[in-house]
């Protein structure tokens, strides 16, 4: 079946088995690669970053890696799922990062008041959130609300393959030895993901098209990155 249209998946990963499998999965290599990639694109970040928000932080593995890469920054991770957040808090405590990393439960779209309370950030980062949202405009409005002038925004997500044959090939290539629940998550996420042109249309609608650019990366990702004016 061709995937001209996306197949949405549920917003939250809240089945305990699903959340635990996701939290325990070995994402060390791709998550570290994501943070390394962010620093290559924006080399001045470690020096100038004081406040970071990680949207859709899940079990806070990327959040913790951001804390490692940005030694002068405090980081707020937000997620709508209490099960994921509990796993994230365990991780942050185990890594001794509680003085610099806080996790908060928040559902997007959040109210203006809730966003204002978080304040503004020098880096707004997000991994694998966009394709979970009912309305993608929510993410871009949140980026706008939370980015300080001159902040870096960096959104990383899957991109939707051309057809289900390609989905099968990607699941086989990257998740072959994972538990069935994770393989199914990966398959559903690929089918729910956006494509470059779709994200560009979202950026246009959000007035961010001059600031952020979308680039397809590797065999299954896209990155949206730039400086918010």
């Amino acid at each position, binding site marked *: 079946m061709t995937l*001209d249209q996306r197949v949405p998946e549920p917003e939250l990963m809240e089945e305990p088995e699903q959340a635990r499998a996701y939290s325990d999965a070995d994402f060390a290599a791709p998550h570290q690669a994501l943070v390394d990639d962010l620093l290559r694109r924006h080399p001045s970040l470690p020096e100038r970053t004081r406040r970071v928000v990680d949207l859709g932080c899940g079990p806070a593995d990327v959040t913790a890696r951001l804390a490692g890469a940005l030694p002068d920054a405090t980081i707020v991770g937000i997620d709508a799922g209490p099960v994921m957040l509990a796993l994230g808090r365990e991780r942050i405590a185990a890594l001794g990062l509680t003085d610099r990393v806080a996790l908060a439960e928040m559902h997007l779209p959040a109210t203006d008041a809730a966003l204002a309370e978080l304040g503004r950030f020098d880096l707004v980062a997000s991994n694998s959130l966009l394709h979970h949202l009912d309305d993608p405009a929510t993410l871009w409005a949140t980026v706008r609300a939370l980015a300080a002038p001159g902040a870096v925004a960096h959104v990383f997500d899957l*991109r939707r393959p051309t057809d289900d044959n390609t989905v099968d090939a990607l699941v086989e290539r990257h998740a072959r030895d994972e538990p069935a629940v994770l393989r199914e998550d990966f398959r559903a996420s690929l089918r729910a993901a956006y494509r*470059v042109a779709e994200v560009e249309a979202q950026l246009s609608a959000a007035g961010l098209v001059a600031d952020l650019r979308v680039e*397809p990366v*590797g065999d299954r990702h*896209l990155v949206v990155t730039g400086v918010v004016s």
Partner: protein
Amino acid sequence: MATDQKVEQAWDTPSHDEIPNITKMHVEYLEQTDDDAVWVQAGMHHVMIRTIGRKSGNVHKIALPFWRDPEGVRVVVASFAGHEKHPAWFVNLRDRDANPEVLVRVQDGIFWSTPDILEEGEEHDRLYALLVEDRAWYADYQKRTDRTIPLVRLVESRPAELSDWE
């Protein structure tokens, strides 16, 4: 942007002798500016690719129009306007010893790519058919030659810096 990539041919196909010179001049302009006037020619967005010559070891730069596949990945066509031989840039790019990665310069950026080379097969044919829907002259180019015209998907493998280009 990628929603409508249809272009009607409104120019004469250049001769095979003219192509290298046109390319050389275009590269020189592209290296100087980010302007649409230079990066968008005949309604088509362009890329520059830097390859290393598989025999000479020299740096070669080429400017090519690209088309985006349904996922949004840039695709360039090794058509050489239907010439019987592959263009030199493709022969170099295909040589993974000389070019494990190539540098790709786009209008607002630069990246390293390990290109997806489609010389034949189901995926090639499916993409070529979609390409021809938007840019009919590539069907004509295919008719002029016995070789199957390859497609190259230029997906980013890692970020690069402008200083890598020189």
